[in-house]
């Protein structure tokens, strides 16, 4: 009996947490199918708001930008982050023991701060015209740390002697990387890529600072639309973005359960 009651409480608590997290999101999803211009009352089911999205060239343009930036930023961040993660695992003494802190700082830094400092850096130091390139660099910057940490956790969970064994059995350092290290790290690297992609697609704060005037991403486009009113079209695009994010996060946490599900 006691145990049954205990598990009932556990279920109730879990339900409350999920409600807290997902109820506001559910409202958006529900109203994206509402056959009314106002987010006030349920009138009837429709998918026409998704249809209007396809006719909205500004929206499509923003989506294309977001997709391009996310793929490019995630690719570069994955390569750099993997190298950083391997370096962090290999050199744990001397000056390089500070490397993890340095690589992870952008992860913990307030986005506002990162946005401002990147803006200053691009304009005052590099004299770069703000646009796709500046957004790309900014997204790479905050993604590297995530990839590095996932890769490092995966490496830390492995028996280091397998890399020595590969060398011992005749593999050069490059062959060791290709045949042993890379295949074993691959799930972590993919998870890092998906995380970076997600972070890039969803990012608003930093992007606002470094986007300049010409280029819009999906979150920026949504923001500029709700300055007028939260239209059902915004609900629809938000729902799609949410679905994409959840799918990618779920996929990533399946690939790297040790880091992303808190499992050792």
């Amino acid at each position, binding site marked *: 009996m006691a145990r049954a009651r205990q598990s009932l409480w556990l279920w109730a608590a879990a339900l409350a947490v999920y409600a807290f997290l997902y109820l506001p999101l559910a409202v958006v999803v529900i109203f994206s199918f509402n056959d009314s211009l106002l987010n006030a009352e349920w009138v009837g089911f429709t998918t026409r708001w998704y249809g209007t999205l396809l006719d909205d060239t500004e929206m499509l343009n923003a989506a294309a930008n977001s997709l391009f930036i996310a793929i490019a930023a995630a690719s570069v961040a994955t390569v750099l982050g993997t190298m950083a993660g391997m370096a962090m695992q290999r050199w744990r003494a001397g000056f390089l023991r500070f490397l993890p802190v340095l690589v992870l700082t952008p992860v913990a830094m307030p986005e506002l701060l990162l946005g401002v400092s990147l803006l200053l850096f691009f304009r005052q130091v590099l004299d770069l015209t703000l646009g796709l390139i500046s957004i790309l660099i900014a997204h790479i910057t905050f993604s590297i740390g995530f990839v590095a940490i996932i890769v490092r956790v995966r490496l830390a969970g492995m028996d280091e002697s*397998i890399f020595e*064994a*590969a060398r011992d*059995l*005749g593999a*050069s350092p490059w062959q060791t990387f290709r*045949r*042993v290290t890379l295949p*074993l790290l691959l799930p972590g690297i993919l998870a890092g890529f998906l995380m970076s992609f997600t972070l890039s697609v969803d990012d608003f704060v930093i992007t606002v600072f470094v986007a300049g005037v010409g280029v819009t991403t999906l979150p920026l486009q949504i923001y500029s639309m709700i300055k007028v009113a939260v239209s059902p079209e915004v609900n629809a695009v938000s729902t799609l973005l949410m679905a994409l994010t959840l799918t990618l996060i779920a996929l990533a946490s399946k690939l790297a359960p040790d880091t992303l599900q808190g499992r050792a």
Partner: protein
Amino acid sequence: MALLEIRNVSRRFGELQAVDDVSLSIGAGEFFTLVGPSGCGKTTLLRLIAGFDAPDAGQLLLDGQELAGIPPEKRPVHTVFQSYALFPHMTVAQNVAFPLQMAGKSEDEISSRLKEALELVHLANKARQFPRELSGGQRQRVALARALINKPRLLLLDEPLAALDAKLREQITGELIALQREVGITFVFVTHSQQEALAVSHRIAVMNNGRIEQVGAPEQIYSYPRNRFVADFIGTINLLPVEVRATDHDGLRLFAAGLGEIVGTPIVGPSPGEQGAFAVRPEQLRIVTAGDLTELDNHFHGRIRDHLYLGDVTVYKIELENRVVLDAMLTNAVPGRARFLERGAPVAVGWQRDAGVYLRD
């Protein structure tokens, strides 16, 4: 000529002198064992031979060729790791074939040698399985097959039995000896277990604090330890502090405080007045309950204080007059009897002059 020459090799890690001026010569086809307590430097020495680490001083020569500067993948030396270090993303067959692929062998040669190697370790039916699906003993055999398949000049084994349970360890020890004889490759085996060392080796080097204490055949090390450390580390032994009284062609006369005189075989070196220890193995002691003691060169009276029944043998702890306790071992040759002597029984214990050795301090 020796296959592997280790000349005055040293390696230091910060304050720790892990390997301290070690010189060894290992012959082709030998089963050579490095034994010592954990932290004695045996694994460091192995890593220097494999090429994972480089010595601070000294030389390593394989077949007369200097090994310095040659990376591990270019050395004809393969290692069986303590953790086995199997590649978890490869099947048994892929693991074992790995060295051949790295060496750029043809597909035909790989498949025929793979078959041979898997049969050698009785794993032909496990070729398609992954390491995680195997038992500890099977993984160990995969590691062996993988390290042997490309016929290295030298096989290094780093505590390969440590992760196995006692019964399996015994079985694999036997297999290892047979395997080494069959393939004829030189084995350098590292272990902290003196029993394993005695059981498998042609020659043993006993290491302590980065130094080699003694090198020799198992029976030599066991019967004639050169110092207290070796005597104490290999097997069990009774150590009596003694002072040298006289040494002449009649024998070595030692004095053990409170016990009296001990006679040993004459040796060159010790001079009267020198302090040292007399070491005698428990199985060399005779326990006499009644009768003539004059046959024994050395004998003392005492009482049975305790006994340890170990199945095949029983170890009796005999307290002598001066509270000195000696361990004496008797074989339980009569079925069903755990002991022949009761606690408190008065006995005499003795040994012949050649049963023990004098060790200088």
